[in-house]
């Protein structure tokens, strides 16, 4: 009987996703498009935050690619506000991947501006996959609780900017801001953490300023 022979390979399992993401990002950069991957659990106010940010970016063209497992409520809302938005329904998949974005971007008449890609509401998988973005924006909330950086460390580690939404509710919930920030900083030394309220619009000037500054470095 033939002998079994072990062949050493030591090769990273080539991830097609990363290659497509790099190409997509490159093509966005060439077109003068600054791409923002918007991440957060379901119900943290990803779309509501985008409405506030896009308002603040007046004068700069904004586009939105909406990722959802099902339905298109968010896209219809954005379109009703005059935003160029298109819907991706993943039909069950827990995150957006780069081939999906490459295809969707082809459907938008992209001129220089900012493209927001709203990921599936999920604090786990979206953090693990690049989709061609320049920056990752993570939205967390005071209602989710201050332990989230400890429970979902990767999302906080990968974020370039963190919005802490629903701050108008601080008087009504037991949110330990110091514990939250300590957890964020253990994983991420540089991302600004900005307190906002999508309901009142408070705090978004700073977010808009940050996006504009980052866009200039394209």
């Amino acid at each position: 009987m033939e002998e079994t022979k072990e062949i050493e390979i030591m090769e990273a399992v080539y991830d097609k996703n990363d290659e497509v993401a790099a190409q997509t990002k490159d093509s966005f950069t060439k077109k003068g498009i600054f791409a923002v991957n918007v991440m957060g659990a379901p119900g943290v106010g990803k779309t509501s935050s985008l409405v506030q940010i896009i308002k603040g970016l007046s004068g700069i063209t904004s586009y939105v690619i909406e990722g959802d497992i099902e339905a298109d409520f968010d896209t219809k809302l954005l379109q009703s506000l005059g935003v160029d938005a298109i819907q991706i329904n993943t039909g069950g998949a827990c995150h957006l991947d780069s081939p999906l974005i490459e295809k969707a971007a082809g459907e938008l008449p992209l001129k220089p501006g900012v493209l927001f890609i709203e990921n599936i509401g999920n604090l786990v998988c979206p953090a693990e996959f690049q989709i061609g973005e320049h920056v990752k924006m993570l939205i967390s909330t005071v209602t989710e609780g201050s332990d989230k950086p400890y429970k979902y460390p990767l999302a906080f580690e990968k974020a370039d900017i963190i919005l802490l939404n629903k701050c108008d509710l601080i008087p009504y919930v037991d949110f330990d801001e110091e514990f939250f920030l300590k957890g964020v900083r253990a994983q991420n030394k540089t991302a600004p953490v900005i307190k906002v309220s999508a309901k009142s619009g408070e705090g978004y000037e700073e977010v808009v300023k940050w996006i504009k500054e980052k866009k200039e470095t394209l």
Partner: protein
Amino acid sequence: MHEYPITQHIIEMAEKYAKEQGASSVEAINLVVGDYSGYVGESINLYFDIIAEGTLCERAKLNIERVKPKLKCTSCGEYFERRPFSFECPYCKGEGEPTEIGKEFYLKSIEIK
């Protein structure tokens, strides 16, 4: 569920190397998967038999070596596994920062006939 395409790719990689060696079958695939790699070993295992059917890897045993994520203490430099709800270093009570340990995902070796 995002393990399906990556499992397909692992089998393609193993087949490519096996063919280069003129092998008639792949007996084992040794894979290293970090817990923070984004892929779940059990799910890769689940898809493996279905996808491997009819390939050189059909009879292969998939061995998955899991790697637990480790933090590095910013004070004393020791590597450690974090405890729930804490990033504290068990040696000096300093604070740990993320490292690449636990994010690896690679094909270590194949065993062929």
